[in-house]
C-alpha cells in the first residue's frame, strides 16, 4: 500500500477491483465504510461475482475474469477523451512529456521486438530519446507525436465502451457509469483510492493489471494524496515483511537483488544498479545502492567481509535464470532434479497450481521438512484420503520430517502490515507440547550443519563458517537481537560528512536510519529500508502513541513504518509544483519556504526545493512512469491479453494465447484446456469466514463455513440440472473436484464477443485435515503458469466443466 489503512477514510471514491476487501480484509474495509458514512464517499466494485463488498457498494459492474486491462484501459481512454485529467500533476509528476524512441510500436496485440521462439521481447526500442546532455528529451507542451502522452492516447483509443463490453462482458451503460464516476476524481479536490489484491496478481498478466490502475491514478493525480494511492491489500500478516526482507529467490533484503552469472564480481554487479538521474537535479535514490549493499554484506558476514574480498560478494549465489521461483522449483522437482524441500509455515499442496503435478513432484523428493503450528496437507501428502487425496502411500519414498512450531500467541517480534507498519507483539501463551520457535529451529539447523562442516568439511563451507551469528544464546537468537541487526549499527566510528572531525555514530551504536549507512564497511545493516526500526531511541516498532493530530489518519507515533516512519509514499506529490497542497483539506506536507513540513515524514529531502526535485525520488526520472521503458517483460504499456485458458480468442490477435512472454514449461503447455472441451470460466477466491487453509482447523470458523462449495448462476444450474445444495463435479484439463453447489443470482452469465460466458466460482479453504468437512481446493484445477514478470500463478482465470454428481468417497482405511 502507498497509503495506510487508516488513510482510506480520507477518500471520495473507493474502487475495489481485483480484490474483495470486505471479505478478505474486513477490519481494513472499516475505513471504507467510514469514508462512506462521514465523507459521503462512493464505493465501486468491479468483480465477476457480486461479492459481500459489492453488497455495500454504490455501483457494481460485472467483468469476465482476466480482462481487467481492457476495462481499465477503457477508463483511461474515457478520461483522456473527455479531458478528465489532473493536468498540472500529469505534466509535472509523470513522464507524459518524455519522448520515446522511434522504434517503439504496438500492433496486433504485440509490442515491437517480439521473438516468438524465445517468447520474449527485444526491449531496446522501448526507451526514451536521450539528448546530448545525457538526459531524456521531453516536450512539456505534450504536443510531440512521440511523447508518452500521445503514444498512450493512441494505445488506449481502441478500448471504447463497445470494445470493453465485447471483451469484458460488462454492459456498456454499467461501464460508462463506472468510468464517469471515476473520471470525476481528476479534480484536484477529489481523490480516489484503489484497493486490490490477488484478483489482479493471480493472472499471467497480473503486473500489467496493476500498472493499468496505477497509470489511471497518475492521470487523475491521486498518487501521494491523502485518501488516494495504489493499495495492495496483501494476504498474510507478514507477507510484506518477508518480501521487504528478501525471502524470495530473486531478492536480497530491501529490494536489493540477487546477482546473476553475468555479474561475476562486485564491480560488475554495482554497474547496473547505481542508476544515474535521467533528468537534471533529480535524486535517483538508488545512487545509494552501494551503501546498502555493503552494509548488508557486513550484516551477513561481519569481519570476514572486507573491501579486499569484495565484501564476500562471491558468497552470494549467482542466478543462471531470472528466478528459482516456486513454479520453477516444482517443475524441477517434477523432473526429479530436486531432492530436498523445506516448508516453513507453508502448505504448497493446496497453495500452488495443478495439485496432481505437485503430488507427483513431492513424491520424487528424498526428504521433505515441514515446520508448522498445524497439520498441513503438504506434510501428509503421502497419506491416502480416498478421493480427497488418492495416493499410493507405499510407493512414495519421500522421508517427511514434521516439526511443531509456536504460533503468534506464543512468540515475540514484529510483523509488517500492508501499510508498511512494523508492529511489535509479545508472547501471551505457553507453547503446546514440545513446539518450538522457528528461530530456534533455524538456528539448530544452521549450528548442526556448521558443526558437520567443521568436522567433515564439504562443499564451500566458507559462508556458513563466517556467517555472523553473534547472539547471547546462539541456540536461540532473541527477537530484539535480530531486530537490532536489521536496523544496523556502526562497526567503527562513523564521521559526519558535513564535519569529518565529528563522530556521527560511535562504534557499536545503532544507526539512526539508512541515511547514516556507509559503503566503506564502517556500518552494517540487515535491511536498509527497515533501518530506523530499532535505533538508539529504542524499539520504535513497539511505540503505542495513538494520537492523530487533526485526524489525518497518519499516527506517526504508532509503531514504525518503512521507510523512516513515512506513512504515505510519494507524499511530496500531494502538493503542487510550488509545494502547496492540491487540496488544502487534504494537506499531508507543504513547502514553507525553506523546508517541507506537515503531518507525515516528507518523501523527499526536507530541504529539496519544490520546483527543482521531482516527487518520485526512487525513479531516475524524478517523476512517475506512464511508460515503463524496458522494465516490464510484457510491455511498457498494459495491453489486453487473454488468460492462457480463455473462453474466447484474443480480439486483438486471435493467434495470441495468454501472455506472449509468460514462461510455459513444455509439460504444462500440453495441459491447457480449450473452450470447446471446457466451456466455463473458473475463478478461485477466499471467503470471509476463513483464512486460507488455517481456519479450517478452528472449530468456530469450521462452523461458520463448514464445507467446500462452488458458486454458479441460476442460468447455468438450470442448463445443467444442478440443484441448490446438491453435489457437483467440476473438472479441468488437470484435475477434478467434487463440491456442494451454491446456486445464486450473484453470478450472472456474461456475453463476450457474442458468446455467453458462465463463471464457476471456486473458494479455496478446504482440504483433508482440520475441523471442517473434508474437501478440495481449486488448485486441483488451476493451470501451472505464472505472470510474465513475477511468476505468480494464474489462479483467477481458467477453464472448467461442470456436471451434477454424487458425493466423494472416503478413504477405505
Amino acid at each position, binding site marked *: 500500500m502507498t497509503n495506510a489503512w487508516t488513510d482510506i477514510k480520507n477518500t471520495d471514491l473507493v474502487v475495489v477491483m481485483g480484490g474483495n476487501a470486505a471479505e478478505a480484509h474486513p477490519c481494513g474495509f472499516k475505513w471504507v465504510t467510514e469514508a462512506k458514512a462521514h465523507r459521503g464517499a462512493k464505493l465501486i466494485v468491479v468483480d465477476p461475482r457480486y461479492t459481500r463488498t459489492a453488497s455495500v457498494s454504490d455501483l457494481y459492474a460485472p467483468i469476465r475474469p482476466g480482462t481487467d486491462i481492457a476495462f481499465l484501459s477503457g477508463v483511461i481512454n474515457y478520461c483522456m477523451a473527455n479531458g478528465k485529467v489532473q493536468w498540472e500533476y500529469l505534466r509535472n509528476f509523470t513522464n507524459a512529456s518524455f519522448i520515446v524512441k522511434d522504434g517503439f510500436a504496438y500492433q496486433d496485440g504485440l509490442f515491437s521486438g517480439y521473438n516468438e521462439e524465445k517468447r520474449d521481447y527485444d526491449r531496446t526500442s522501448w526507451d526514451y530519446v536521450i539528448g546530448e546532455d545525457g538526459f531524456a528529451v521531453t516536450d512539456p507542451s505534450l504536443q510531440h507525436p512521440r511523447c508518452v502522452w500521445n503514444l498512450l492516447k493512441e494505445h488506449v483509443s481502441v478500448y471504447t465502451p463497445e470494445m470493453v463490453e465485447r471483451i469484458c462482458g460488462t454492459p456498456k451503460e454499467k461501464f460508462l457509469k463506472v468510468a464517469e464516476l471515476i473520471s470525476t476524481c481528476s479534480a484536484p479536490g477529489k481523490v480516489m483510492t484503489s484497493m486490490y489484491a490477488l484478483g489482479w496478481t493471480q493472472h499471467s498478466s497480473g503486473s500489467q493489471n496493476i500498472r493499468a490502475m496505477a497509470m489511471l491514478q497518475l492521470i487523475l493525480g491521486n498518487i501521494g494524496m491523502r485518501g488516494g494511492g495504489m493499495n495492495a491489500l496483501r494476504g498474510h500478516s507478514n507477507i510484506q515483511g518477508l518480501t521487504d526482507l528478501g525471502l524470495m529467490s530473486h531478492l536480497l533484503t530491501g529490494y536489493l537483488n540477487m546477482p546473476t552469472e553475468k555479474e561475476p564480481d562486485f564491480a560488475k554487479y554495482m554497474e547496473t544498479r547505481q542508476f544515474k538521474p535521467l533528468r537534471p537535479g533529480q535524486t535517483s535514490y538508488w545512487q545509494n545502492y552501494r551503501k546498502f549493499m555493503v552494509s548488508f554484506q557486513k550484516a551477513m558476514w561481519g569481519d570476514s567481509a572486507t573491501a579486499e574480498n569484495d565484501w564476500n560478494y562471491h558468497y552470494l549465489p549467482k542466478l543462471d535464470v531470472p528466478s528459482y521461483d516456486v513454479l520453477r*522449483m516444482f517443475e524441477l522437482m517434477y523432473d526429479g532434479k530436486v531432492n530436498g524441500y523445506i516448508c516453513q509455515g507453508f502448505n504448497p499442496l493446496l497453495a500452488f497450481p495443478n495439485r496432481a503435478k505437485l503430488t507427483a513432484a513431492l513424491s520424487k523428493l528424498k526428504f521433505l521438512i515441514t515446520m508448522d503450528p498445524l497439520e498441513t496437507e503438504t506434510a501428509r501428502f503421502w497419506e491416502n484420503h480416498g478421493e480427497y487425496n488418492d495416493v499410493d502411500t507405499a510407493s512414495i519414498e519421500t522421508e517427511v520430517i514434521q516439526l511443531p512450531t509456536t504460533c503468534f500467541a506464543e512468540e515475540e517480534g514484529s510483523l509488517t502490515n500492508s501499510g508498511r507498519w512494523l508492529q511489535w507483539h509479545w508472547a501471551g501463551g505457553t507453547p503446546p507440547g514440545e513446539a518450538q520457535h522457528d528461530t530456534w529451529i533455524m538456528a539448530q539447523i544452521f549450528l548442526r550443519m556448521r558443526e558437520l562442516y567443521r568436522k567433515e568439511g564439504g562443499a564451500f563451507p566458507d559462508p556458513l563458517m563466517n556467517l555472523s551469528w553473534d547472539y547471547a544464546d546462539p541456540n536461540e537468537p532473541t527477537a530484539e537481537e535480530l531486530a537490532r541487526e536489521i536496523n544496523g549499527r556502526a562497526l567503527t566510528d562513523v564521521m559526519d560528512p558535513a564535519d569529518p572531525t565529528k563522530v556521527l555514530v560511535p562504534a557499536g551504536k545503532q544507526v539512526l536510519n539508512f541515511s547514516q549507512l556507509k559503503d566503506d564497511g564502517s556500518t552494517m545493516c540487515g535491511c536498509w529500508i527497515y533501518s530506523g526500526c530499532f535505533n538508539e531511541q529504542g524499539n520504535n516498532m513497539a511505540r503505542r502513541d495513538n494520537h492523530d493530530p487533526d485526524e489525518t489518519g497518519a499516527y506517526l507515533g504508532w509503531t514504525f513504518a518503512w521507510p523512516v516512519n513515512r506513512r504515505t509514499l510519494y507524499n511530496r506529490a500531494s502538493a503542487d509544483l510550488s509545494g502547496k497542497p492540491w487540496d488544502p483539506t487534504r494537506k499531508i506536507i507543504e513547502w514553507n519556504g525553506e523546508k517541507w513540513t506537515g503531518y507525515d515524514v516528507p518523501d523527499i529531502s526536507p530541504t529539496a526545493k519544490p520546483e527543482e526535485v521531482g516527487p518520485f525520488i526512487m525513479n531516475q526520472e524524478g517523476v512517475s512512469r506512464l511508460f515503463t521503458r524496458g522494465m516490464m517483460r510484457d510491455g511498457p504499456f498494459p495491453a489486453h491479453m487473454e488468460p492462457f485458458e480463455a473462453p474466447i480468442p484474443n480480439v486483438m490477435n486471435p493467434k495470441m494465447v495468454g501472455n506472449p512472454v509468460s514462461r510455459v514449461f513444455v509439460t504444462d503447455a500440453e495441459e491447457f484446456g480449450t473452450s470447446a472441451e471446457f466451456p466455463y470460466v473458473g475463478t478461485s477466491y477466499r471467503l470471509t469466514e476463513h483464512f486460507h487453509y488455517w481456519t479450517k482447523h478452528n472449530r468456530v470458523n469450521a462452523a461458520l463455513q463448514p464445507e467446500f462449495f462452488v458458486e454458479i448462476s441460476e442460468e447455468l444450474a438450470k442448463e445443467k440440472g444442478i440443484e441448490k445444495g446438491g453435489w457437483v463435479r467440476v473438472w479441468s484439463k488437470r484435475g477434478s473436484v467434487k463440491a456442494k453447489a451454491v446456486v445464486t443470482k450473484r453470478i450472472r452469465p456474461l456475453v463476450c464477443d457474442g458468446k455467453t460466458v458462465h463463471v464457476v466460482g471456486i473458494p479455496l479453504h478446504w482440504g483433508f485435515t482440520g475441523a471442517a468437512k473434508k474437501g478440495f481446493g481449486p488448485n486441483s484445477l488451476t493451470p501451472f503458469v505464472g505472470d510474465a514478470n513475477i511468476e505468480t500463478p494464474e489462479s483467477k482465470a481458467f477453464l472448467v466443466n461442470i456436471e451434477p454428481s454424487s458425493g466423494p468417497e472416503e478413504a477405505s482405511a
Partner: protein
Amino acid sequence: MNVELSRRGFLKLAGAGAAGTTLGAMGFGEAEAATVAHVRQFKLTATTEVRNTCPYCSVACGIIIYAKGDASKGEKADILHIEGDVDHPTNRGTLCPKGAALKDFVHSATRLKYPMIRKSGSDRFERVSWDQALDRIARLMKDDRDANFLTHNEAGVPVNRWTSTGMLAASATTNETAWATFKVAKTLGIVGFDNQARV
C-alpha cells in the same frame, strides 16, 4: 416470598383449608427457592493481558490475549480469551470472524506438539525427539548440498548455487524470524527460496 403470598391466595380461592398444613411437608422449599436474577461471572477477571497482532491478513489488527498465568514472567500461561485492542488505530477493537476466533486457532485439536518422522514408504508418522529430528535434517541437507552444490558454472564463474534443495518461508513469521531464516538459507546457497508473496 411472593410464592408464599400467592399460595395463600390460592388457598382462599380453592377453599381447601386442610391442604395448607400438608403442603409444607411435600418439599415446597425447593419450588420456592428460585435463583435470584444474576448475570454470568465476568470471565476476564484476574487474567493477564498481553498485546499481540492478528496473524492472519495484513491489516494486522491489534489484539489482546487474556491468559491465566504471565508468560513474560516465565509462568505457564493458558490462553483463555482473545479480543480486539480498542487502542489500536486500525481496528479500534474490532475483529473479523477469523480474528474473533483466534483462541480456537491457538487451541485447535490439530495443533502440532511433537516432532514426527514419516519413513520412506510408511503410512504413518512416528514421534521422535528434537535431537533425532534435527540431526537427521542436518545430515540429509549436508549430504545433498555436498553432492549437488555448484561452485562454478561452465564458464568458470563462481556461482555457489544449491538448487537441489529448496525452501518456502512463512509469511506469518515475524520479521526477526524471517531475517534469521534468510541468513541461514542464503548462506547455504539455497536459490529455490520463496514465500507466499509468490502466490
